[in-house]
């Protein structure tokens, strides 16, 4: 299979794709189709955390949940986000492909020490949970003027 990868007329990306399809073929030949499939699908969007001197923002992609069923708690600087997702089921339809996550999820995030427990806001839009935590005044950097 590697002989075919040596062609100079192929770009690096093409080679990579070719390798991927070769892998697919090998996995399939070995009867491991499902396994390879799982590996390919394990890369899913993950949490994104960003901070400014004023606040910390957490973005958690969780499509198709009921935001009321999400629990967000903050203890000191440790935030826990948990909830459940129930994917659509049907008695009359046959499930031909099933990849979407179904069940409970739980995340624990360590935040900076200066987060304000009283100022936490959460919203849910387009399948992304956004939690905004303000940081305490005193912790913000102050500009000292020299007299």
């Amino acid at each position, binding site marked *: 299979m590697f002989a075919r990868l040596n062609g100079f007329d192929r770009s690096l990306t093409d080679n990579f*794709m070719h390798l*991927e*399809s070769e892998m*697919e073929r090998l996995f399939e030949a070995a009867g491991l189709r499902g396994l390879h499939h799982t590996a*390919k*699908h394990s*890369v*899913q*969007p*993950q*949490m*994104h*955390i*960003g*901070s*400014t001197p004023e*606040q*910390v*923002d957490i*973005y958690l*992609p*969780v*499509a*198709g*949940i009921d935001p009321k069923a999400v629990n967000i708690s903050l203890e000191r600087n440790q935030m826990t986000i948990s909830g459940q997702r129930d*994917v*659509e089921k*049907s008695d*009359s*339809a*046959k*499930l*031909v*492909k*099933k*990849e*979407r*996550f179904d069940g409970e999820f739980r995340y624990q995030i360590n935040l900076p020490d200066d987060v304000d427990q009283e100022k936490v806001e959460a919203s*849910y839009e*387009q*399948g*992304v949970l*956004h939690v905004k935590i303000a940081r305490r005044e005193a912790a913000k950097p102050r500009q000292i003027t020299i007299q």
Partner: protein
Amino acid sequence: MSHQPEVVAKEKAVAEKRASSYQSVRPNVDIHEDKEGITLLADIPGVSREALDIQIDNEILSIDGRVELPVPNGAKADYAGNQTTRFQRSFSLSKELDGEQVEATLKDGVLALRIPKRQEFKPRKIEIRTA
């Protein structure tokens, strides 16, 4: 009557790979099949209606959506799990599906595509006439 065609929407590997880049992610999908057609559900959190492009060309269905997070200006990324910017995936539709009649809805980051079977492939009940 339990004889139903097996897979009605097969992944189109070639088209998908051509369009993919390092930053693109294949959305996870569920596909339900019933007598009238199929329903394809795809998780694409963070993609708005405006940033989503669904195309059917030559029986190839392509989904392409850009993720836009409203990150505040000047924010420092403390932890970026993976910098997803795009969801991309393609499927080749089997002949019995009617690509002209696709209905798409997007709610809470879940894209639902309803693709009916062509009339001639839907089950028909044959009336038996009394002699």
